[in-house]
């Protein structure tokens, strides 16, 4: 029951100033995204308007309001990566996963995202699969190495399209 789970999470927090964002982060860690009921509970718990919780949750790029894929493939589009061809990597990844940036494969296995910079610029271009940084990636690597690894580690080929 999502409601029970989020209640459990909320009990962790004392009613203190500024708890909204850490609270959203905790809820998202638990669910992978921010279910609407959880948002409503947070609003009730912190005694702030619903609309304000929604407003904050939609402002920050890390909060998702819909379910994400189990694995997050993030393609760095930072400056250093950009000059070393990050756009090609992004397009290749879109092509290979069959989804656009910000989308999730139909089987909820993978989500593809661009990230502004992961601070590994010296290793540009980089991509992040879940929490691991892969340095000096080329479209070829992506096609022949990383995708295979991804599939080997996480199962079948991503379902195309959505």
């Amino acid at each position: 029951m999502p409601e029970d789970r989020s209640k459990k999470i909320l009990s962790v927090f004392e009613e203190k100033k500024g708890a909204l964002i850490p609270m959203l982060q905790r809820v998202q860690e638990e669910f992978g995204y921010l279910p609407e009921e959880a948002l409503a509970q947070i609003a009730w718990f912190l005694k702030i308007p619903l609309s304000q919780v929604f407003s904050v949750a939609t402002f920050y790029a890390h909060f998702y309001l819909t379910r994400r894929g189990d694995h997050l493939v993030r393609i760095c589009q930072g400056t250093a990566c950009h000059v070393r061809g990050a756009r090609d990597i992004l397009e290749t990844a879109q092509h290979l996963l069959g989804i656009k940036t910000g989308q999730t494969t139909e089987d909820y296995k993978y989500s593809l995202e661009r990230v502004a910079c992961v601070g590994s610029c010296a290793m540009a271009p980089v991509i992040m699969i879940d929490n691991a940084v892969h340095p000096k990636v080329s479209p070829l690597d992506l096609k022949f190495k990383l995708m295979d690894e991804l599939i080997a580690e996480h199962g079948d080929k991503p379902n195309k399209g959505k």
Partner: protein
Amino acid sequence: MTAAKKKDAFRGIRSFEDLKRLKESVLAQEKADSKTLIVCCGTGCLASGGDKVRQSFIDEVRRQGPEENIVVRKTGCRGFCERGPIVVVSPENILYQGVSKEDTPEIVSETILKGELVDRLIFEDETTGDKCVHEADIPFYKKQARRVLRNCGHIDPTSIEAYIGVGGYGALAIALSKMNPEEVIACVKESGLRGRGGAGFPTGRKWESSRNAPGEEKYIIANGDEGDPGAFMDRSIMEGDPHSVLEGMIIAGYAVGAQKGFIYVRAEYPLAVRHLHTAIAQASDLGLLGQNIMGSGFDFEIEIVRGAGAFVCGESTALVLSIEGKRGFPKPLPRPNTSIVGLWDMPTVLNNVETFACVPAIISNGAEWFASMGTEKSKGTKVLALTGNVKNTGLVEVPMGTTLREIIFDIGGGIRGNKEFKAVQTGGPSGGCIPEDLLDLPVDYESLARVGSIMGSGGMLVMGENTCMVNMARYFLDFAQNESCGQCTLCKLGTRQMYHILSDITSGKGRPDDVEVLLELAAAVRAGSICGLGQTVPNPVISTIRYFREEYEEHIHEHRCRALVCRSLVSYRIKEHRCKACMLCLKGCPVGAIIGAKWQVHEIDQTKCIKCGACVEVCPPRFDAVECLTGKANEG
């Protein structure tokens, strides 16, 4: 292992003497260790396998040698990420680069046990062919002055004892025992330290205004949001030397009369968050945070706040709102300074992470020591993230006033693939491009501002001839329009429209007076936006137009991109007479746009091609069968 034992002996540091005693015992232990294998485990080296190397060293040492005297130490970033993973054998200080798991047995057996070098892992200077055994011999490090980064890559960032061993928390002891808050502020003022987060505001003056501002509570905030793409100075400091940030913050707290500090860290930096958590826990354990620090009667605590993905939250008022749990909408003028009305409307000192990391060294070594380096108005050193098309990318720290040429060519080793230098971009999306004829410009706040760029947080992106300046401007505007908070009209819509026009230009749809329109929009956005983001993001457009106007004209009038970057203006073709039908490109094309077979000259299906250039890369140079065309050649 040993750390746990030590902690038993020292149940907390209750006085200045306790700190001294702990330091001595750490040093004594270090002397007893005969060899140390220092493995860089900064994010860069981790990505290239640093952790595996460390683990395999531990196993190897256990297998091959007298375990007790050989210590495997992990450290934060040494800056030379490009060549990672980096391993240093101490006390000889032999530096191995590009070490892999497979190399570890040999390093243990040869270098550690026999004292022999492993030749192939030693850095070789490409230009001179010299072998550089020690870190100090490598040109990348030669011109650097690593003061803020003094501990990064040397000590284990997850051990407070290691930090205390190199004199850590000594500055705090000095401040608490020998100086009153006014003296601390005076010392910081005298040192000439200016904010490292962007604007370069004198830190001492900021502290003073917070100290003098009325408020029941005061706060210290370390800005570790580091949103500029291409910057990772703060990350390395937080990951590699977290205690220096804490120490700087505690000293600041003492100076302004604050008892609570926050570190705002980007969510993209999980390792930094982890190391800071460990550091705070250790410091609290030893009593260096909490109540009555070292018996001085001063209380201070620090909390970590994770960002949630908004570049604009690096801006001071937005950051404060974000900690308060609100949307990060920067506050428009007129508004009081954060140092007077900040977090929960209380006086708040907000400084960059690197700024705080400078403070302990200033207190320990004195204001003159710090002020002795740098230029007249910009004192000390600056950490720069050297990236882009330069041979040695990584983190460098140089005295203020070092010229761009020294940084790019002496430290950075020049342009990759021996291409021509074109421009250098400083200050990230808020900065500007600087062309070749200004390469002798000294790097300090004023000089950079004079040529239309900024110091910013210290990102330094080097661009060679294969970078298109219009595309660069478009890239930065794309970033800006994605990161605009959307509060003010000019920034929200202006960046989008500039991006739109730049996109048109790069895709061959530019109109004759687009450059003028761009400049008009840029000027208005700069003048009318609320916060630093809107006020500075037109800079990349303005500066590229200022120095590279002809590239804009070429794109608009000739549909030519000389750097062969703008997709719509180039096409990849296979030269019929050179193609050997080897099928390499056919296999390499990520989207399957190449048609061909054995014995059949290959051809690129232009409708499928995404112009990634993979085919050029894989086509053997001796065939040289793929070419990239632009301008008249492409169209005609």
